[in-house]
């Protein structure tokens, strides 16, 4: 059911193209697949509130999608497929709850404080359906759940992916992923993780957890942890879709804009990150003319908005750095001094040794490889970077540029030992051969 291969969903789904009655199964199937991609989160979120239980809600939503295929083949695609599906799923949930009293009794989940919702959303015959997508997202990314469980739940409940698909995306056996999802759902219900949007006081921390999950999805897709391809398109698209959804739901949060901008600006280079033979191309070798200009333009606009109002957060700052790269005519002509300054700010907003590593790389461009190397030497003492493949890779590159071939070769070998991605391995092996052969 997740077969729709469309790119970014447009901000406004617009009216559907259903044209009256008649048996049109292919059109109905396409509409169902499309609604699965666009509306899953909305339908499940609204159904969860009525069902009071995530498993029950999922079951009812699945049923609704199945009956949609039949009904839409017969009667045509409704004007608002999301509302149709929600109404159907919610009716089914209410029905099951009425019939099954034991089901009704065991529901401690979804302690739903009934505050008014931000968007009153759609009406299709059974009253106003509130937009509960944010509740769903914040519940999936609750800090009482382990990060990997947050990621799995978000893909499953917000994106509607099957457990098999999630397992494949993270190179985890399916039973392991199934157990992870089940355990997380159990905790939500047994520990009573509330189905709500956090209040203003908790929002910054809780939002950061949500954005971290989306960003993790993106980075996992951007450079796949293993296998042949460098990029895992499906994850990148899901992450971009989630960031876009959050942007629409929380238009006043600069960090949400920052994250969407970061994703768009980074992914704009997608087509140029590999040579036709699959070889990895670094930023300085990429054909900048092939970067996705519309995505960059949108990203630049979002960055400007995200930086407005002072005290930018870590996603806005990373997006600002990506924006400087996107605007630079070439690698050497990039505004490296400004990038170093942004990394300084980023290091204050986000204490991460990876930020320090990236700053060292930028410093090497702004002030020469020697300066960068001195920074890296300091970072090598940080135990949090032990085993981080980009540290020896960065070191190797600076040593190569300084003409210290033997040391560079040793660093390339160290990086190779830590890398599983095929394209990255190819790249490192190529550079190793280059410096070893000199």
């Amino acid at each position: 059911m997740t077969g729709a291969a469309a790119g970014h969903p447009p901000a406004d789904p617009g009216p559907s193209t259903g044209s009256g009655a008649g048996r049109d199964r292919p059109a109905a199937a396409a509409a169902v697949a499309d609604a699965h991609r666009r509306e899953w989160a909305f339908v499940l979120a609204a159904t969860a509130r009525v069902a009071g239980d995530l498993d029950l809600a999922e079951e009812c939503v699945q049923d609704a999608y199945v009956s949609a295929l039949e009904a839409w083949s017969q009667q045509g695609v409704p004007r608002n497929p999301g509302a149709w599906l929600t109404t159907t799923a919610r009716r089914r949930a209410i029905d099951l709850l009425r019939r099954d009293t034991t089901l009704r009794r065991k529901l401690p989940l979804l302690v739903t404080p009934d505050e008014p919702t931000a968007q009153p959303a759609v009406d299709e015959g059974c009253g106003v359906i509130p937009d509960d997508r944010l509740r769903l997202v914040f519940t999936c990314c609750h800090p009482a759940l382990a990060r990997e469980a947050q990621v799995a739940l978000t893909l499953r409940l917000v994106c509607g992916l099957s457990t098999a698909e999630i397992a494949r995306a993270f190179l985890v056996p399916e039973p392991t992923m199934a157990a992870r999802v089940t355990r997380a759902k159990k905790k939500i219900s047994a520990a009573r993780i509330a189905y709500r949007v956090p209040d203003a006081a908790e929002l910054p921390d809780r939002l950061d957890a949500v954005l971290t999950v989306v960003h993790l999805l993106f980075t996992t897709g951007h450079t796949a942890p293993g296998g042949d391809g460098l990029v895992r398109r499906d994850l990148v698209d899901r992450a971009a879709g989630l960031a876009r959804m959050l942007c629409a739901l929380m238009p006043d949060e600069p960090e949400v804009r920052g994250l969407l901008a970061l994703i768009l600006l980074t992914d704009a280079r997608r087509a140029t990150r590999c040579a036709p033979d699959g070889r990895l191309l670094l930023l300085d070798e990429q054909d900048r003319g092939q970067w996705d200009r519309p995505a960059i333009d949108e990203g630049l606009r979002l960055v400007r908005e995200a930086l407005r109002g002072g005290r930018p957060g870590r996603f806005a700052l990373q997006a600002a750095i990506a924006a400087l790269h996107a605007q630079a005519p070439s690698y050497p002509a990039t505004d490296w001094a400004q990038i170093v300054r942004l990394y300084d700010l980023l290091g204050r907003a986000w204490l991460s040794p990876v930020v320090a590593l990236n700053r060292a790389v930028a410093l090497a461009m702004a002030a020469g490889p020697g300066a960068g190397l001195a920074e890296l030497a300091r970072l090598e003492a940080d135990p949090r970077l032990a085993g981080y493949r980009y540290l020896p890779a960065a070191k190797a590159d600076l040593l190569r540029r300084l003409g210290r071939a033997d040391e560079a070769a040793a660093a390339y070998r160290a990086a190779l030992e830590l890398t599983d991605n095929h394209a990255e391995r190819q790249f490192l092996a190529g550079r190793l051969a280059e410096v070893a052969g000199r």
Partner: protein
Amino acid sequence: MAEYLILIFEDENSYATATPDVFQEVMEAHNRFAAQVGEKGGKIVEGRALQPTSTATTIRNDVVTDGPFAETKEALGGYYLIEARDLDHALEIAKLTPARFGGVEVRPIMVFDNA
């Protein structure tokens, strides 16, 4: 409202070597905590401190042995059974629980269907 157990895990050595002033502060912190829980809209159903693990006896397969179930640096030293609306509320209360030599674990109390 639901019930949660807040388990207080602390380093026993720190208590063994603590001055009377420290004990006084700890007692005051717990009294303050009791008042704060009410202000937060929660309720303490019960709360107790335990004797140190040196007084513990473990039984496994009917074999009785001296000592706690698991030897760890931080041992269960006391607990509060509280009532809270949901996990966020329980965690808000748990963050106020005095545990200067360690931390706390929050566990929902299991509710049986036919209870």
